[in-house]
């Protein structure tokens, strides 16, 4: 696919905005506790002002109502600039969950604040280290109209700042989605310091008051698909960025009297990597477009995109560190941040093995 005019404008806007506002310095400040929050608040504010927080929110609720392709253009920049914002959790996962699974009243209550940037939403679905969305021990208990949920969730991205959790819990014998306000007394949030400084938490729900999000049977799949699609774009963006830095280093660094980019063994590896990146990006865009078009094989395409983007990013980061030699091992160089983020983004919502396994299942073998 090629971007249409609207998408191209958004791509340019995002690139400028992130080039302008996002920086590894902020990441370092957040890591060192020298920032006013555990995410880049100034960047987030700029994104709110540009309307990017409402990118997937219907116009009726103050959003732009664009598609995943457009959101992916933003996600790509977050990966490229190592930006720390609640974009994935709120503008994508939150907007899709409430927008597709929420009833009119719920949409009215939460979509506006998402678009306005006054509400951060966090998805709480995993309970073990490996993403297995069907394995849910958290229980939903209904008493009359009131529902409460109890259970423990891990890998809750942006959990420390969330005003609202979208939680999976067993209901009538199968996992379903619920909304829980963070202010509820049954909610305990334990922040986790993560490898890539992404805001993360373990969250416990003790008879927390919940609302079902059941306006749409496929919404859970839609949420997972959208999340994986965004992570694929994030991984593509960071692959490109780490590769660009590596190319620059290859062009500048001298060893044995030559610029190291002149060594053919490195050239061939760089060339191979560049092809992998192009292919993963093309796959990711195609998968996002398939989601937007409601294509029958959108899930397969997104699984393929996430699996491939994860492998590509990990290769790009590994080659980046190795080709930077000792310098690549130092915290002073930024290259290690890409390796850490590639690891986290690969793991979240299903690693390459998970996605490949599901892909094979979906294909029927």
């Amino acid at each position: 696919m090629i971007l249409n005019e609207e998408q191209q404008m958004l791509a340019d806007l995002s690139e400028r905005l992130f080039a302008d506002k996002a920086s590894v310095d902020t990441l370092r400040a957040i890591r060192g506790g020298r920032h006013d929050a555990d995410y880049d608040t100034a960047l987030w504010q700029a994104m709110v002002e540009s309307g990017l927080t409402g990118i997937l929110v219907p116009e009726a609720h103050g959003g732009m109502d664009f598609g995943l392709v457009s959101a992916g253009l933003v996600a790509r920049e977050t990966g490229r600039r190592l930006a720390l914002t609640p974009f994935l959790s709120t503008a994508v996962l939150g907007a899709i969950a409430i927008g597709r699974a929420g009833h009119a009243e719920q949409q009215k209550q939460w979509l506006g604040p998402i678009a306005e940037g006054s509400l951060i939403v966090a998805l709480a679905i995993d309970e073990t280290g490996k993403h297995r969305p069907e394995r849910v021990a958290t229980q939903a208990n209904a008493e009359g109209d009131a529902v409460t949920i109890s259970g423990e969730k891990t890998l809750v991205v942006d959990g420390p700042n969330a005003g609202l959790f979208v939680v999976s819990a067993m209901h009538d014998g199968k996992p379903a989605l619920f909304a829980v306000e963070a202010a509820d007394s049954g909610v305990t949030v334990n922040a986790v310091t993560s490898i890539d400084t992404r805001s993360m938490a373990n969250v416990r729900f003790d008879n927390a008051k919940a609302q079902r999000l059941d306006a749409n049977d496929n919404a859970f799949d839609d949420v997972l698909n959208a999340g994986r699609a965004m992570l694929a774009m994030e991984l593509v963006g960071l692959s490109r960025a780490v590769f660009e830095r590596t190319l620059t280093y290859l062009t500048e660094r001298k060893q044995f009297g030559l610029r190291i980019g002149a060594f053919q063994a490195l050239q061939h590896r760089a060339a191979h990597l560049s092809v992998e990146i192009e292919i993963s990006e093309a796959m990711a865009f195609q998968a996002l477009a398939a989601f937007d078009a409601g294509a029958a094989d959108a899930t397969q395409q997104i699984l393929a995109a996430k699996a491939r983007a994860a492998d590509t990013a990990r290769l790009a980061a590994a080659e980046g560190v190795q080709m930077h030699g000792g310098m690549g091992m130092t915290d002073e160089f930024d290259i290690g941040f890409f390796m850490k983020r590639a690891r986290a983004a690969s793991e979240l919502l299903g690693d390459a093995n998970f996605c490949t396994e599901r892909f094979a299942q979906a294909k029927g073998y």
Partner: protein
Amino acid sequence: MSDLEEFRAEVRTWLEDNCPEEMRQPLASDAEHVWGGRKWEFSSDAQRVWFDRMVGKGWTAPAWPKEYGGGGMSADEHDVFKSEMNRINARSPVSNFGFWMLGPALLKFGSEEQKREHLPEIARGEIRWCQGYSEPNAGSDLASLKTSAEIDGDNFVVNGRKIWTSYADRADKMFCLVRTDPDAKKQAGISFILLDMDTPGVSTRPIQLISGESPFCETFFDDVRVPRANLVGEMNQGWTIAKYLLTHERDNIGGEPPGLLKGRDLAQMALEAVGADDQGRLDDPMLRADIARLEIDAMAFRALVEQTRAKAEAGEGVGARSAMLKYYGTELNKRRYNLMMDAMGGLGLEWESEQTGGGRYAREWLRSKGNSIEGGTSEIMLGIISSAVLELPKG
């Protein structure tokens, strides 16, 4: 109804009426491909009927101008035509290097006379062309070729040897790179000429491949006299044309795999050959994972091919990026055939049995090994990407 829709309706009706049922079946083997040329013998009536009808319409070369025997279609019409052909799985009525390679080169670099002489006879399937590029001691370093063409009056006198000429033993004419200035360095001093394979002094020898087939030949030139009028483009400027065609050739690589795997589902073949476990999964978890990874990579590669095509249609140059497609597409195809062999197991070890169609699994697998060599090796492609796309420093 727009003009294009009207055109589509016309094409569809004509194809429905005129394409024989037999010509809508996939090729069972390379042997069913219609190459055309002076010595061509059709293997079925359907082949001949389809050929005659398409030649009559000028649709063997749909996008060439009508005055050169083509169909005169615009780019949009050509797309419509291709999609209609695909819709009914219509086979190509005739095709050879004249269509893919020489035609485009002549349209771009040929004189008016050359166009009028050669294009119509290509379009009519009367002449089968082959390509004389590689030489035994040049290989990937094409520019170091040595076959010489010295001027003697109105003729070139050609001496030397070409290798990897596809089906030179069955072709009528050859387009050929020759050295016309022995003192010039490398690329400079090379010219692009046309010659008839019946000219005295031309001889060919088929090369047997590891797959057992012989699609390539060596071609020997011993004082072969070629009219100077057969020079295409400028003297000593043949490298420009060669480069144009190399890129063009690469564009044609990297699509669907040919042969046994064409349009067939590898996972399905594997399920039939290996069996399933009680959950219906392929009963070899590692092969299953390898196939899934291949399918993901193939789907992703197609996405890049599509994107590249779309960009090209939107006017963005493809340039050296075609090397990316050539590299990855051919490596992918080798992986695909390796997995097919893994799935087929013992059947893949049979070289001549009936149940394997004469050892097709093994032969096509072996043939696929050449994909990353012909048309520029994977190493050459990586070098092109490295210098022309990534702009890494020279060694």
